[in-house]
């Protein structure tokens, strides 16, 4: 039994979460969330993988051949789109935070702006 892809997926969640918890910069935090999200791409694609099968593209294949699961691949596409939109929204929030508080350090984000 090979569970290496699943271990990597769990590891990406863990590393991303570690980055978020210890982050001192909102842009870094957004990237860490993207790392966490990439774990879900890996997990979905790993679940649908079938050994020795081709991609679910039949444009240059003679007939029905074994192919990996197309549903999880379509789900991954949705996942990527959602990930991008989340990143865009968070970056917009980071821009606003910087305008309001003059810093990107989550520790300094308190009413009244950064401590000097």
């Amino acid at each position: 039994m090979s569970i290496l892809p699943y271990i990597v997926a769990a590891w990406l969640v863990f590393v991303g979460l570690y980055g978020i918890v210890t982050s001192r910069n909102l842009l870094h935090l957004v990237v860490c969330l993207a790392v966490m999200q990439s774990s879900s791409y890996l997990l979905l694609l790993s679940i649908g993988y079938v050994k020795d099968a081709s991609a679910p593209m039949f444009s240059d294949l003679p007939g029905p051949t074994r192919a990996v699961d197309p549903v999880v691949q379509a789900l991954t596409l949705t996942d990527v789109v959602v990930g991008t939109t989340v990143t865009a929204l968070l970056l917009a929030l980071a821009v606003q935070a910087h305008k309001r508080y003059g810093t990107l350090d989550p520790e300094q984000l308190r009413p009244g702006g950064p401590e000097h």
Partner: protein
Amino acid sequence: MSPRLRLRVFLVAGSGLFGLLIWGFAGLPDFGHFHGVYGQLLNRASTPERATTDVITAVNFDYRGFDTLGEEFILFAAVIGVTSLLRTLRGERVDTPDDDAPGRQVPETSLAVRVTGLLLVGPTVLVGLYVVVHGHQTPGGGFQGGVILATGLLLTYLSADYLTMRRVGPTALIEAGEAAGTAGFVLIALGGLIFAGTFFENFLHIGTAGQLLSAGTIPLSNFAVGLAVTGGFAFMLSEFLQQTLVKRRRQVR
């Protein structure tokens, strides 16, 4: 909470989560031995039924088109969210940033970057259109092609500046593309309701697999989504880049 204490709390909770994830994943089907019937059924059915050789596009724009409609509106909502977050606030005025740092010399974009960027615009747009148009045959489709097309607009920013990008892709045009694409996808779905009796039913002639004009409404949906994604991404890029122009008039505390 001090950073050190927070890290300790996280390491305890995080290793627990890590263990739980591994335990949960161990119950998944063995890697390489997935036997989901739905996917295999679609793999077998999509080429004869829908003349689609790219099964993922068939799933996205036909079999599970309703889910993609939700995905489409997530993107739409995010574009609206970014726009409203980055709107020009009270106390801000839009200005060129040159006089913001009088002592600092901003280096000019090098000629190599300008020329390469300019040369890449044409091929990028062509590849983007190819990916959108052939979505039902080869890997790609509206989402992927739309992102590539929006990159074409970003290249004009790299090789010139923000104001030139605004001239090449005026906001009104980008907005119209985004709106028309999103509405077009809904209209195609409604077309299924009107002409075939079911929302998202493929109501056009299916044709022969491998031909460009085949797969019924799938290429049309790809085109609509491609338009919406191009507009959405171009609009978000434009909004972020506009922040380089926004300057605060006074510190608001």
